[in-house]
């Protein structure tokens, strides 16, 4: 049998959980229960939504963008066998992100790599600041 004999035997025991809640990187935000964890950022040209979805094939991730909401849906499948330890989440997940900015829907792009999904939502042209030239009379 494979036995985990790390110093804190027992995996996510209560001690670990308290520890992780205080200092864990996943708990920077207030929303602790939401899965998958996601980061949102923006630059001058686009909004970026990134989320950690390890173990899900690209084909099994369902991304929909309607009006001002981005929906990330998918399922984490379970392997067959006799489980000694199960810590990884399984089952269906969904997250909805409200985008309060005009987005160029046709140019939305998503890339998945190493369990990280990155969605780039380019801002539509009308919202970008524009220089107005002043004509001399």
């Amino acid at each position, binding site marked *: 049998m*494979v036995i985990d004999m790390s110093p*804190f035997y027992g995996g996510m025991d209560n001690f670990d959980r308290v520890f992780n809640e205080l200092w864990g990187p996943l708990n920077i935000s207030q929303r602790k229960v939401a899965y998958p964890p996601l980061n949102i950022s923006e630059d001058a040209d686009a909004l970026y939504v990134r989320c950690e979805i390890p173990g899900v094939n690209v084909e099994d991730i369902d991304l929909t963008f309607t009006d001002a909401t981005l929906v990330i849906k998918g399922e984490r499948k379970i392997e*067959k066998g006799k489980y000694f330890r199960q810590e990884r989440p399984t089952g269906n997940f969904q997250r909805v992100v409200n985008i309060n900015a005009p987005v160029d829907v046709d140019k939305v792009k998503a890339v998945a790599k190493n369990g990280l999904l990155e969605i780039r939502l380019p801002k539509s042209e009308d919202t970008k600041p524009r220089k107005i030239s002043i004509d001399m009379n």
Partner: protein
Amino acid sequence: MTKDIAQTEAKGLPRMKPATDILETGDGFFIYVDMPGVRKEDLIIDLSDDELRIGGRSAYQGVTNENRIHVEFGNVEYTRAFTLSHIVDRERIKATLKNGVLELHLPKAEKALPRKIQVELE
């Protein structure tokens, strides 16, 4: 919020125990470890005596000129150790990294596989 992250980055990456599944199938054991963001080159798997140690750090590109609006995860350093039993065939351990999940296959040694025992009639 952003300040907190900047501080942890300065002190080194936060350490984390990756979520792990351990299961047994007919011919051996499978260990699945969630390590999103870890590249193949950054993954360390060490086997010494009975201890299998895995480690790696996630390598999300530094968000330099982007303005962070909402943050729930960041770069971390994953580390975890497992103790192997004697019935695992050390020579044939296989590791694959796919979609941010490390899959370790630990086959059972031939002598540990279940065997049918013939009952001889007297």
